[in-house]
């Protein structure tokens, strides 16, 4: 492991080190400030090291560090940073908050490994590190029965799904003989039969589908989102899903040849079902966290539609969508976190009645994020939805587009319903929510500004997304992918 190889994987090392420091810190003297600081600084250093890696590729086939990986890693790190800041405010009033930051760092480490993985082993390891740390994070507020129930549900189902994923990988490996994702494409082209590969890929998709909460595997989402403490829900909704989306895109790109029409049809059904079910389930939800859970199912349906559109344009659309989705969901759950008191999270809709007149700043951030989720212009959500429809029209996925239009029309109802409740007259006896900690206030402000800035002037985001898409497209072997016509490798 030469010096520059070490530098190549420096972000992972920094994250690991930060987790250790935080852990040791707890053993010496439990201080919430120190742990939080360690976590935040660790993430910041990791982000910095991400750009100071130098040009050398990471050693061995396990990890791949192309622009695509860098973009998604940056996203994951910023999301974790935001969650850490939110958690510092949220946990200040709880007992024994320090362990959360360790778990958070480990989860982030797992996510980054997942994003960088170019090999089945690193894929599995990244996924499991992320999952295991999530189990305990979800059940962190031990006192409430709901979060414990949520965590055990998540554990059993996640474990089962990763087992399914593993079995799928085994079948694929059995057929193709290689575990390196990039080599799978050519191996597939040369492979004799497809008897094992197709079911293998199908099983892998199920494992990934669970993490992305696509329709047949979505049922855990509302319970976990409602049960878990608010910052952890934000983590689950953003980091876990974002990393897995990156992985799915990389796999889909590499395994393009294997995906016969059958798989595409299956994916189409899943996407359509996710969009419709997500929006329909959220229609008259009175619990804000469950509502956001269902809406995130629908949003992943839109992402899957974008992926199905195929070609580098699709990857660009997905990257734009994921970025916008991250910022929006972080803002939304940030508000929920800030409003949550020590006795329980602020998830009942009545608590948000007339919020605009009681807590104007916080309410406006939530309104902005809801509008972005609904895809109203001048918000990042609109640019994202526009990119997805753009990709869809380009590849002529008319049925999926029709479902997208119908489901987002349905979606408008419940987003607007919440907004209107927030603008309604404030009830007389409304519980006075805890003051907003300074750090969370600054974070929410930044998120809101980014949200509007991306909506008004999205060109830089589109640039970044295009660099990510083209870098991924460039590395794949020159195989005609069914996900779209042969695309020009150099833009």
């Amino acid at each position, binding site marked *: 492991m030469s010096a520059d190889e070490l530098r190549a994987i420096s972000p992972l090392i920094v994250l690991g080190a930060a987790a250790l420091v935080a852990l040791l810190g707890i053993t010496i003297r439990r201080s919430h400030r120190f742990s939080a600081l360690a976590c935040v600084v660790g993430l910041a250093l990791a982000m910095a090291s991400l750009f100071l890696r130098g040009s050398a590729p990471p050693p061995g086939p396990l990890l791949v560090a192309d622009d695509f990986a860098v973009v998604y890693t940056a996203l994951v790190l910023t999301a974790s940073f935001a969650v850490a800041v939110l958690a510092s405010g949220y946990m200040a009033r709880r007992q024994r908050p320090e362990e959360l930051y360790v778990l958070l760092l480990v989860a982030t480490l797992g996510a980054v490994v997942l994003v960088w993985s170019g090999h089945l082993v690193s894929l599995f390891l990244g996924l499991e590190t992320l999952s295991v740390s999530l189990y305990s994070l979800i059940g962190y507020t031990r006192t409430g029965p709901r979060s414990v129930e949520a965590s055990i549900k998540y554990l059993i189902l996640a474990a089962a799904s990763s087992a399914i994923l593993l079995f799928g990988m085994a079948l694929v490996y059995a057929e193709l003989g290689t575990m390196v994702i990039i080599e799978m494409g050519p191996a597939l082209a040369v492979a004799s039969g497809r008897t094992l590969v197709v079911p293998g890929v199908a099983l892998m998709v199920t494992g990934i589908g669970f993490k992305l909460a696509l329709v047949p595997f979505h049922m855990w989402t509302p319970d976990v989102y409602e049960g878990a403490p608010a910052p952890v829900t934000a983590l689950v909704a953003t980091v876990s899903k974002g990393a897995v989306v990156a992985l799915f895109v990389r796999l889909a790109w590499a395994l393009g040849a294997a995906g016969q029409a059958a798989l595409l049809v299956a994916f189409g059904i899943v996407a359509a079902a996710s969009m419709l079910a997500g929006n329909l389930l959220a229609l008259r939800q009175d619990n804000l966290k469950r509502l956001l859970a269902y809406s995130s199912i629908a949003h992943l349906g839109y992402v899957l539609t974008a992926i199905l559109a195929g070609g580098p344009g699709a990857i660009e659309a997905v990257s734009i969508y994921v970025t916008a989705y991250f910022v929006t969901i972080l803002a939304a759950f940030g508000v929920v976190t800030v409003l949550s008191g020590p006795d329980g999270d602020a998830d009942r809709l009545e608590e948000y009645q007339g919020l605009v007149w009681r807590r104007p700043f916080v309410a406006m951030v939530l309104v902005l994020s809801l509008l972005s989720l609904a895809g109203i*212009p001048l918000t990042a959500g*609109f640019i994202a939805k526009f990119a997805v429809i753009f990709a869809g029209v380009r590849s002529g996925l008319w049925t999926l587009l029709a479902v997208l239009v119908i489901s987002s029309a349905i979606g408008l109802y419940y987003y607007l319903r919440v907004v*209107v409740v927030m*603008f309604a007259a404030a009830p007389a006896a409304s519980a006075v929510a805890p003051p907003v900690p300074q750090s969370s206030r600054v974070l929410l402000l930044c998120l809101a500004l980014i949200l509007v800035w991306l909506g008004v002037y*999205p060109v830089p985001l*589109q640039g970044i997304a295009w660099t990510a898409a083209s870098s991924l497209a460039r590395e794949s072997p020159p195989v005609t992918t069914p996900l779209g016509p042969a695309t020009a490798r150099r833009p």
Partner: protein
Amino acid sequence: MILGWIVVLTLAGGALAWSGGRRASRWIALGTLALDLVLVGPLFLRRPATPAGRRWLAELVLPWMPRYGVGIHLAIDGLSLLLIVLTLVLGILAVVASWREITQRTGFFHFNLMAVLAGILGVFMALDLFLFYLFWELMLLPMALLIAIWGHERRTRAAIKFFLFTQAGGLVMLVSILGLAFVHHADTGVLTFDYPELVGTPMPAAVEMLLMLGFFLGFAVKLPAVPLHTWLPDAHTEAPTAGSVVLAGLLLKTGAYGLLRFALPIFPEASRAFAPVAMTLGTIGIVYGAVLAWAQTDLKRLVAYTSVSHLGFVLLGIYAAGTVAQEGAVVQMLAHGLSTGGLFILVGALQERLGTRSLDRMGGLWAMAPRMGVLGMMLALASLGLPAFGNFVGEILVLVGSYPRSPELTAVATAAMVLATAYSLRLVQRTFFGARAEPASVLQDLSARETAVLVAAALGLICLGLYPQPVLDTAEPALGALRTVFGQVARR
């Protein structure tokens, strides 16, 4: 360059009004709109002198999203200039009319009102289809908030219904816009959303019809073509006075403007084939709106349904294609804006004083409020299409223009004039004449402010009725340009 300033100024004015106190916000809103009108003024004077070559009175082109071929392209010709002036005038009337009515959170109220007006101004100026769609969606949210926060009894339901209807239509339009862009891209290899370049894109008939229908659906929801109109009565009834004025006077016109600007010129063949269906829809709208207006007991719902009837004329005129019919549609748009805006202000004043909108609890108000009676009578007569008012000129031109295209529809539309008489006179009778339903309540007449607003609307209608030539001259070059693209449809 003024165009950009007008939209920005309106939004800035709104933001300033939000921060200002209750009294200040009104004056700020009024000042901004007046300033906009001053900015637009010279354009109006420069109207006939547009140099032959240039089609646009004023134009602003800025890069925005080069990768997607999206740019900020604002431009106005005669047609959009007229509608912009109408927007500003009705905006001022709305602000003045709700001087006393809005008591809580007036700052935020004026912010929303200015945001809606900015959105509408943007719609009339945008030439880049993406930008057009952005402004199209932008004007919905503040309008929905106006209804939801300051509305009457069932305001939440009405606000959400209004929002859903238009958004769904908008989404379908977005897919059509993208479809159009890709068809253009496939044909010329250039990805752009710029209207001048997209016009005249050759495309197979089936695709053209499909895309045209997407556009038509989006606009038909806004310009309420009959089956898609059911959001209108709820939204108008529950909206505050200023909301109703802006909703009826302006938002409905964005649909008609969209048809004239985008649907017809970009898809000439499909529009020509679709014209009979659209004209029939228009005529059904006229009759259906009139019959329903006649049957209402709630005053605001009655006036709302008259809008459906009047806008039916506009739809008939647009698709009857030909100088006379389309200019009739433009005049009808302006006249309807003033007459229905005025009626809503009057109804708002009545609701403020009597606390009710139901006709059964009104009657015999002439004795106590003669000024309100006279102005109400004039506006009702205008809406039934009495000559010497703008509505008559609009309707007659539409009918004259549409007669050669289809005599039967024109006959039915003319017969609807009788229904218009029925509902207008019923409105006047049940509010001002007959016995007093509630003798106890004392009703003081219109204040100087309200009288000034209504007199302004009435005078505007009379000028439009007796001397509409300046309006026709402004609209003619714009419609002429659209028509050359849409081809000589109407047989002379």
